């Protein structure tokens, strides 16, 4: 008997150990196993590679996929995620800027490209042309977040409602079913509701609309956990291309940063990456990519003779602040001088600067005079996107459009910018009212006194940038 006991003890222990290891392995496999998203081409990496957001803020892919089908009434139109301005390339599984990465289970995340790919169409019947690095003019980031939050708040956000929609498209194993039913679906709901809390400050501010973010309030209230204040930082997305020509430029609209590397890290963290998950090597590849990425050429006809005339007008009126090599290009111009809406500048308070030791972002007193490469695709204009066309920008503020629509990507070759008025723009677009706080289209009066002919020539030249 004793010898039996002696043998039984270790046997039981061994079996228990094996079971434990097995359970551990299965658990690791289904919850933590990380499969890197590496693309040979830097362009593919930019569009679909992970920047480390999935560990903390990744939504289980299958849940993300079926939400628009289960809650279509919470979207602005038909088309699933495309109605929020996400753009699929032909043949690709996820939209540009949406990552699918397996960490235990496939998760959906976002990367730089979600906000930094622009599209345009020549006519409404065309398919979109995607231009990487451009400001995502039709992506409604706030609408996207609000859609996810609305889903999470819906009492139907349960396994009973969600699982059948998933298994319609994808066969789950028994174990996966249980993991989704008892872990991932309830956890996703909880996480989205928590995330909604961290964005509650949005509810008391004007809507961003497509192509804009309140990036630095997000940094203040979400990343740095600073007390809520009354500032409004709604501002346009910026292009990322051609960084090789932007050495030593001040970055962001108000020039808070001068290091591109730091700005990229801030972007990844703002997007949901953590100090642990941030993939430094992949971000280095992105940095190299946007250094070399050329701004897209204007795709329509240009009157070269007229542009030639405009070139001289540009040299006399704009170049010192806006041409590469200009004395003030890439530097902060005091807000009193440029006269544009000051809300974005005031977002970064002294307190924020003090608290952001990890970022070292120091408050400035104005807005950066940006270079104008790829300008044609960067409409609407000014930091808050308050002027729909270049032609409007060369008019006095009282003659600029007071109300227009953003997010419609059909191009207006006469006014230079996206079609922002008329029925079609109204139907898909976001109503931008320049009377709303932080949306003012005042300031930047340069060139408004040119003659009509001069303006026309200047605009023709600006198309060539």
């Amino acid at each position, binding site marked *: 008997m004793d010898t039996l006991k002696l043998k039984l003890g270790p046997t039981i222990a061994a079996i228990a150990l094996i079971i434990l290891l097995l359970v551990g392995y299965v658990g690791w496999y289904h919850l933590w196993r990380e499969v890197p998203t590496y693309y040979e081409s830097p362009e593919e990496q930019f569009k679909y590679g992970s920047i480390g957001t999935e560990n903390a803020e990744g939504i289980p892919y299958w849940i993300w996929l079926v939400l628009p089908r*289960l809650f279509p009434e919470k979207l602005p139109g038909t*088309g*699933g995620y495309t109605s929020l301005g996400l753009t699929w390339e*032909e043949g690709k*599984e996820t*939209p540009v800027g949406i990552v699918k990465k397996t960490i235990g289970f496939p998760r959906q995340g976002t990367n730089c490209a979600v906000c930094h790919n622009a599209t345009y169409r020549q006519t409404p019947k065309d398919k*979109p042309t995607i231009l990487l690095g451009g400001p995502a003019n039709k992506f409604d980031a706030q609408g996207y977040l609000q859609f996810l939050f609305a889903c999470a708040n819906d009492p139907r956000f349960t396994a009973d409602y969600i699982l059948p929609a998933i298994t319609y498209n*994808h066969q789950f194993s028994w174990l996966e079913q249980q993991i989704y039913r008892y872990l991932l679906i309830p956890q996703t709901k909880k996480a989205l509701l928590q995330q909604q809390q961290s964005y509650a400050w949005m509810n008391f501010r004007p809507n961003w609309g497509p192509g804009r973010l309140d990036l630095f309030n997000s940094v203040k209230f979400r990343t740095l956990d600073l007390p809520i204040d009354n500032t409004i930082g709604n501002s346009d997305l910026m292009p990322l291309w051609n960084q090789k020509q932007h050495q030593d430029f001040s970055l962001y609209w108000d020039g808070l940063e001068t290091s591109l590397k730091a700005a990229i890290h801030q972007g990844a963290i703002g997007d949901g990456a953590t100090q642990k998950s941030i993939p430094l090597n992949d971000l280095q590849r992105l940095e190299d990519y946007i250094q070399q990425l050329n701004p897209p050429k204007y795709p329509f006809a240009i009157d070269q003779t007229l542009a030639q005339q405009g070139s001289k007008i540009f040299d006399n009126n704009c170049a010192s602040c806006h041409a590469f090599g200009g004395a003030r290009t890439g530097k902060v111009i005091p807000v009193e001088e440029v006269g544009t809406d000051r809300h974005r500048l005031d977002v970064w308070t002294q307190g924020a600067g003090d608290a952001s030791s990890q970022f070292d972002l120091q408050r400035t007193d104005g807005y950066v005079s940006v270079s104008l490469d790829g300008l044609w695709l960067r409409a609407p204009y000014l930091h808050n996107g308050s002027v729909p066309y270049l032609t409007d920008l060369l008019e006095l503020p009282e003659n600029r459009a007071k109300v227009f629509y953003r997010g419609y990507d059909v191009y207006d070759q006469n006014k230079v910018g996206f079609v922002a008025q008329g029925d079609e723009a109204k139907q898909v677009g976001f109503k931008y009212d320049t009377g709303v706080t932080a949306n003012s289209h005042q300031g930047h009066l340069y060139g408004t006194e040119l003659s009509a002919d001069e303006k026309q020539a200047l605009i023709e030249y600006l198309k060539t940038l």
Partner: protein
Amino acid sequence: MSTQDKPRLLQTLGKRIWVFVIGTVLTVAIFLVWPFLWHNGPVRYTDIGEHFKYGSIGGEKANGIPYWIWKALPVVFADKLPGPGYTSFGFIQEPGKDLPIGFSKSKIGFERVAQNCATCHAGTLRETPNSQPQIMLTMPSNTVNLGAYIQFLSDIAIDKRFSATEMMPHIEAMGAKLNWLEKLVYRYVAIPQTRDALILQGSKFAFMDRQSDYGPGRVDTFTGYQTRQFNFPVDKLSQDELNGIADFPSIWQQGPREGMQLHWDGNNSSIDERNNSAALALVTPTTIDFEAIHRVKDWLLNLPAPSYPYPINEELAAVGKPIFESTCASCHLFGGSGVGKVVPIEEIGTDRGRLDSYTYKTLSNQNTLFTGISYRGVDQRFNHFRKTNGYASIPLDGIWLRAPYLHNGSVPTLRDLLEAPDKRPQTFYRGFDVFDQKKVGFVYDVPSEGNRQYFKFDTNLPGNGNGGHIYGVDLSAEEKEALVEYMKKL
């Protein structure tokens, strides 16, 4: 006898009673449950023709209608049918068969009816009204009014007679040999659930109220796709995307078509993906029977188009041959430089409804279908869909049997297609299967035959325009006649 014997005896008796009771219950239970467990699985036929006509492609699991309900519908709702029985929708009934062509019956717990490829890709042909209809597999269905069938299923689902009380007596009268448990399942599960599923399906097809009638031989491929696969809200679909009603295509000789721009607007160049996409009208990504579909695919790869069965004036055809070669071949003959490629809408000039009904947002969502599903080691996720700007010029093999012509079936015969649009028939009848050997197409001036009404096609309705494709309209009358004679031989 000791005093202890009595209880022991009782104990034994008690045990035996229990055994008896449990045994009986088990026997009855097995007897009742047995029919649900036996012969489950998709219906298979060894003969490929039978498989095409009656084999399952996986629809029963997804949205199969319980067999006895399906059988009872035309009896209970006879007043909602255009004529007697399912054949009044133009479905083809072979003698001695239980179901019409294009329907399969498989047992999953109980027998269910679903549809397969042959619903839309089989037709009939008669030389004269008195001839026996000849069944032509893989031709575009010329008789089936799928729209009317869908509408019928939507209508009956909200009819109060769709209830166990109303339907069970009919089912039993039709000879259903259901045991007590099966009856219960029918009464309390199958009938109410089928009704709910059909109501849901009806709501996804509600856009049909805003469309021209399909009539026989046509369907709107991509709108139902948007509402059924992606749940796009029906009421938010924009009107200019709702005119995509298109003719069924022939499906013979697929091999030489590999790599061509398939579908009327040429939106996909992969045969497999095109097939899976078409199957999604009847199955889901997880219930699709790849094996069954690939059997059909393999059969179709080299299946020749049927030869013209009536006399051909060879002399005249010989005159037509060079005309075809100089006027049509570059776009329409296998090997032609433009065949299987999209011609821009501005150039082809045909009705743009079908082109506009396929949108970039549909394409975007399609890219996610069949994610993570593979067949024979090949990832099945859709990645070949493209948004085009026109219509594909198709090879004309067996063109004689593919009337009416153009993508929306707006021109009844080949001879009419060679006339300028204003000289083509403005209205005509579809669904009649008697062949017009002179004009090449189906006779189109017959509004009814017996108790069957044919469908009046109005080219002035949205999506039905008969304009465009004006190639050959300037030929002389003699040249046109010769060209049409030659085209019978394709």
